[in-house]
C-alpha cells in the first residue's frame, strides 16, 4: 500500500516536471490522475456536483498559471490540494459576498471514508458527514479518503500534523457517536 502510494507520487512528480517543460501529454495524464480526487475534495466545500465541476476547471487554470511554483522533487499532492483549497475558498468568499445560497435539493454529496463504510449505509453516513464542521470534513476527506498523510494535511491546511490527527480522531468519534445514537451499527 505504502509502496503503491510512493510509486504514484513519483509518477505525479515526473508528470509535473514534464508539464513544466511544456509537455501536453503530461498535462493530460496529470489531469486524468487528479480529476476524481480533486472533485471529491471540492465537494467538501460546495456540496454540489455542477459547481464542483466548474471549480475543477478553475483549479486547473490556477494550477497552470502557478505551475512554476511547483518545486521539482517535492510531493505534488500537497501543492495541488493547497491550490484547490485556495480556489474553493475564494469561490465561497465571493458567493458569501453575493449572498448566494445553494438550493436544499443540491445538498449534500459527500464521499464516505472507507473506515466508516462498515458503520452504516452510505446515505446515512453522507447525511452525518454533512453535519460535521467543514474543518473536520476536510481532514477526513484529505486523510481517510484521499490518502494524504497528516503531515501533508497540515501543510495544506496550515495546521500542525498533530492538530490534523486530533481533528480526524474527534470527527470519527463524533460520527461513531451519531451512528450509535441512531442504533444503526451493523
Amino acid at each position, binding site marked *: 500500500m505504502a509502496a503503491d502510494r510512493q510509486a504514484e507520487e513519483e509518477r505525479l512528480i515526473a508528470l509535473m516536471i514534464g508539464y*513544466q517543460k511544456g509537455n501536453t501529454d503530461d498535462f493530460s495524464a496529470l489531469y486524468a490522475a487528479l480529476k476524481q480526487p480533486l472533485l471529491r475534495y471540492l465537494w467538501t466545500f460546495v456540496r454540489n456536483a455542477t459547481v464542483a465541476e466548474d471549480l475543477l476547471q478553475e483549479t*486547473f487554470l490556477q494550477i497552470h498559471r502557478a505551475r512554476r511554483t*511547483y518545486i521539482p522533487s517535492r510531493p505534488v499532492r500537497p501543492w495541488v490540494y493547497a491550490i484547490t483549497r485556495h480556489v474553493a475558498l475564494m469561490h465561497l468568499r465571493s458567493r458569501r459576498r453575493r449572498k448566494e445560497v445553494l438550493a436544499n435539493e443540491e445538498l449534500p454529496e459527500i464521499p464516505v471514508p472507507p473506515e466508516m463504510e462498515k458503520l452504516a449505509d452510505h446515505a446515512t453516513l453522507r447525511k452525518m458527514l454533512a453535519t460535521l464542521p467543514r474543518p473536520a470534513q476536510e481532514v477526513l476527506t484529505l486523510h481517510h479518503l484521499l490518502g494524504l498523510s497528516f503531515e501533508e494535511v497540515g501543510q495544506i491546511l496550515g495546521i500542525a500534523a498533530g492538530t490534523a490527527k486530533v481533528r480526524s480522531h474527534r470527527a470519527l468519534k463524533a460520527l461513531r457517536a451519531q451512528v450509535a445514537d441512531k442504533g444503526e451499527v451493523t
Partner: protein
Amino acid sequence: MSTEFIPENLRQAIVRDLRPVRPLLPPWQRTLVVAAVTSAGIAALLAVFKTALRPDMSEIPMWLSWGCSSLQLLVGLALVGLALRESIPGSALPSGVVAAITTTAVLMQVVIGIATWLYSPGPVLSSGALAKGVGCMTHDTAMALPTLIATLWLVFHALPVRAPIAGLLGGAGAAVTADAITHLVCPMSDLRHVLVWHTGAMLGLMLIGWAAGILWDRRQQRQPLQFEDA
C-alpha cells in the same frame, strides 16, 4: 494531447499557453537573493544618511551590540525565508507557529532594548523627543524598505494561498533586519523612545506586510483567471 477527459474550453486555454517554465528556486535560495538586496540597500542608505555608530558603543558589551545585531539579522532573514516558503502552495506553516515566531521577533527587540538601556541608560529625552522619534521611525522604515519590497515582490510573484500571513512574515523579517542596524546606530537608549518609536516601527512594518497580503488577495478575487499570453 489526449483530449477525452479534458473539457474543450480548458484544453484550449492550456494549449494556447503551454510553454516551458522554469521552476521557482527553493525558498532558501530566494532568501539569499533578498539578503543580497538587503545588504546593498542598507549600505546605500547608511551612506546617504551618513550614519555613524552610536556614541556609547564602548559602554555596551560586545555580545549585546554586535552579537545581538548579528542574531537579529539572522532571525530577520529566517523570517524572510518563512515568508517565501509560505508563498509556495502546500508549504503552509501552522498558524500557531507563525504567531509564536512573530511574537518572539518583537519580544527579542524589546528585550535587547531593555538590556541596552540597563548597560547604557543615556540621557532622558525631554525636549525634541517627538522629532527624534519620528526621525528614528523614518530611518527604521527606510532601512526596512529594500528587504520589504524584495520579499513582497518574490512572495506575490509566487502563489501565496495565505497572502496576509506571508505578508506579515515578510514585514516582520524586514523590520527585524532593519532593527539589527538601528540598534547599532541609534544614539538613544531611553526606553520610552525605543519602545514607542522602534517597536512601533516594527509593528507598523508587520502591519504593512499583512495589509499588502490582504490587498493582493482582494485583487486576485476581483481578477478572473487569465493566462499571461491572453
